[in-house]
């Protein structure tokens, strides 16, 4: 299997005159290997009821061609990339400088803000709904970012908090007739309590043990919601959840979508503000210290228990709020909306965006929610493309789209030279 192991860039100089022969040869190997690998599943389709076998030979040709081309371009990319590494770094910091330049980012912010304000009045009902979903995911991503990005607590069951928020809105409304504006903070609070409940038993766990326990909690919650019919109405879910009210003025569904969009914009801004402030606060720095080294952080006098619980509770708060908003938006919830795939999606948003980076999370949430919506043409292939995209982004940018820049103090020589 030497074709995988050799690094093409090593040879690129000595065989440069041979042009592409090496790459073509290697790509043929890759294509043949993948054709062999995909053969039974792609080509043969058995129908065990009618006892017929369908041979779909055309598929294998497609696989061969596609993998040959992909492998060929991949190797060209590797060859080109090897000497250009320094240039890429340069570009990166140039992009960052652009972002940090007030002359650039202020007008950009104003343009984005005005677009966000005008959007609901020019876009269709459907597009507003899609955008609302994306905004909910921004909130979820930012909330999970507290746990994973800042505190380094790998949470694979974040969707549980989201479910707590959604169900507390739906159930409290159903039983007690409470309204959206009372239940929004209530849902957030309940989710935070649930976060502490999850956080307590896992305080001693670290890393992947934590991951599986959070996953276990989420699965338990989902299964209970699915099976405890008297409490949660089981898999059929709860319908007719009211949309948010506006001082008792009746709204048409279109108007209320616009209204919800603005509520979400406001809440997202609040989230961004709070998380930005948290990041550089005492507890935020404690989280980062905990993420980097638990032992050293304890030695510095940080209460690990408190910091961990705070991360769980605060992370869960945003998920709870997002859950309430989700229930209010769809007016129908059932346990199927809160599967592991959803957790994975939110985690993907955080990691793709670049852990700990607010701007990165927002970009990734918009990309992950909006792109599949507008790629409905390929509706069957949406999820497979999503999976492939996750792998590709991670390979090309393992740090995420916009990795967080560490705050650092710089020592300026010039100051001293001036004085002397």
């Amino acid at each position, binding site marked *: 299997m030497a074709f995988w192991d050799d690094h093409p860039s090593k040879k690129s100089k000595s065989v440069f005159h041979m042009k592409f022969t090496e790459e073509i040869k290697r790509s043929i190997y890759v294509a043949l290997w993948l054709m062999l690998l995909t053969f039974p599943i792609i080509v043969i389709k058995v129908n065990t009821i009618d006892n017929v076998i369908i041979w779909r030979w055309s598929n294998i040709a497609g696989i061969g061609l596609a993998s040959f081309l992909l492998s060929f371009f991949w190797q060209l990319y590797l060859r080109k990339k090897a000497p250009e590494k320094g240039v890429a770094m340069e570009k990166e910091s140039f992009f960052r400088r652009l972002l940090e330049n007030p002359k650039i980012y202020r007008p950009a912010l104003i343009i984005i803000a005005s677009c966000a304000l005008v959007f609901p009045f020019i876009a269709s009902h459907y597009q507003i709904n899609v955008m609302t979903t994306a905004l909910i995911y921004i909130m979820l991503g930012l909330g999970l970012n507290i746990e994973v990005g800042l505190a380094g607590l790998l949470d694979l069951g974040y969707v549980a908090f989201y479910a707590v928020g959604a169900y507390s809105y739906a159930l409290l409304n159903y039983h007690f007739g409470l309204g959206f504006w009372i239940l929004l903070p209530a849902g957030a609070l309940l989710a935070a309590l649930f976060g502490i409940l999850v956080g307590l038993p896992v305080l001693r766990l670290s890393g992947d043990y934590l991951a599986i326990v959070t996953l276990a909690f989420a699965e*338990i919650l989902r299964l209970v919601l699915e099976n405890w019919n008297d409490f949660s109405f089981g898999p059929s879910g709860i319908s007719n959840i009211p949309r948010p009210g506006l001082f008792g003025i009746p709204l048409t569904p279109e108007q209320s979508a616009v209204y919800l969009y603005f509520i979400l914009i406001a809440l997202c801004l609040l989230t961004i503000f709070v998380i930005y402030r948290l990041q550089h606060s005492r507890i935020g720095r404690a989280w980062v210290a905990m993420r980097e080294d638990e032992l050293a952080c304890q030695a510095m006098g940080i209460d690990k228990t408190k910091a961990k619980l705070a991360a769980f509770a605060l992370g869960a708060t945003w998920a709870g709020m997002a859950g309430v908003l989700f229930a209010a938006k769809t007016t129908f919830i059932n346990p199927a909306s809160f599967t*592991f795939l959803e957790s994975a999606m939110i985690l993907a948003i955080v*990691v793709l965006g670049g852990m700990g980076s607010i701007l990165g999370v927002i970009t990734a949430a918009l990309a992950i929610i909006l792109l599949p919506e507008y790629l409905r043409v390929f509706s069957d292939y949406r999820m*497979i493309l999503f999976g492939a995209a*996750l792998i590709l982004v*991670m390979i090309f940018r393992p740090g995420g789209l916009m990795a967080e820049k560490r705050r650092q103090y710089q020592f300026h020589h010039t100051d001293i030279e001036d004085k002397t």
Partner: protein
Amino acid sequence: MNFFWDLFLGGLTRGSIYALIALGYTMVYGILQLINFAHGEIYMIGAFTALIVASVLTMKGMTGLSVLMVAGVVAVLYSAAYGFTVEKIAYKPLRQASRLSPLISAIGMSIFLQNYVMLAQTSDFLPFPNLIPPSDFLDSISHLIGPSDFIIILTSAIVMISLSLLLKFTKMGKAMRATAQDQQMALLAGVNINRVISITFIIGSSLAALGGILIASHVGRINFYIGFNAGIKAFTAAVLGGIGSIPGAMLGALALGMAESFGTGYISSDYESVFAFAFLILILIFKPDGILGRSSQQKV
């Protein structure tokens, strides 16, 4: 008593299957510290390949033990190849990256493989033929233990014993243990890390495929989504026993199988997975590194 015995056997069967899959998780984790989310999908692909090969062979007129043998061997080989390729594509480029990047890549691979099988085959449940041929011996003990239960427990016991022997006594096993302990040091001692990782994936995937075939012929139907649940359970089992520890994975899987079997039998059948997860949380509260895990006490 009879009911108890049935539940015990059910737990043993379940646990054996979980163990076969959990071994792959724990071996990969031991060496790469990576939760290989695509592992459940390899198991599913093993079951699908076996189904396809077996159906083709049956329609060509083959019967009996030979179908089981050929389908089994082909499925195991294919799954091993899939495991090998998945590692090369999705994990190898990320070996130097932070711990979360390969995790996301693994989740991506899992979604990809699920949808790949769904698009290429079908999203419906497919009936899986019972490949175990009838025999007098199995019939004679059928009042004690069902034929498929017997085969599952026997096969996994043989596989687990041979894996333990392989790790303990062969050169490759030594290299694998060394890599799990300290990758840098193993590299300095002349271990080919890339080969060790590839072989780990190949062995883990073969075991998963074996589990896939066994459970599929036990349950009798498969679809593209079976890998997810089995994968989560097997991962739970691996963590329960102490992830990275091979005897731990076997023990954890058996304990998990028993917990599920007795929980469904004596309490309620709706909450099968809840028992498994609650059991995991309980154990981890008291033993945060799993039953046989190495203590992760940090020292400076």
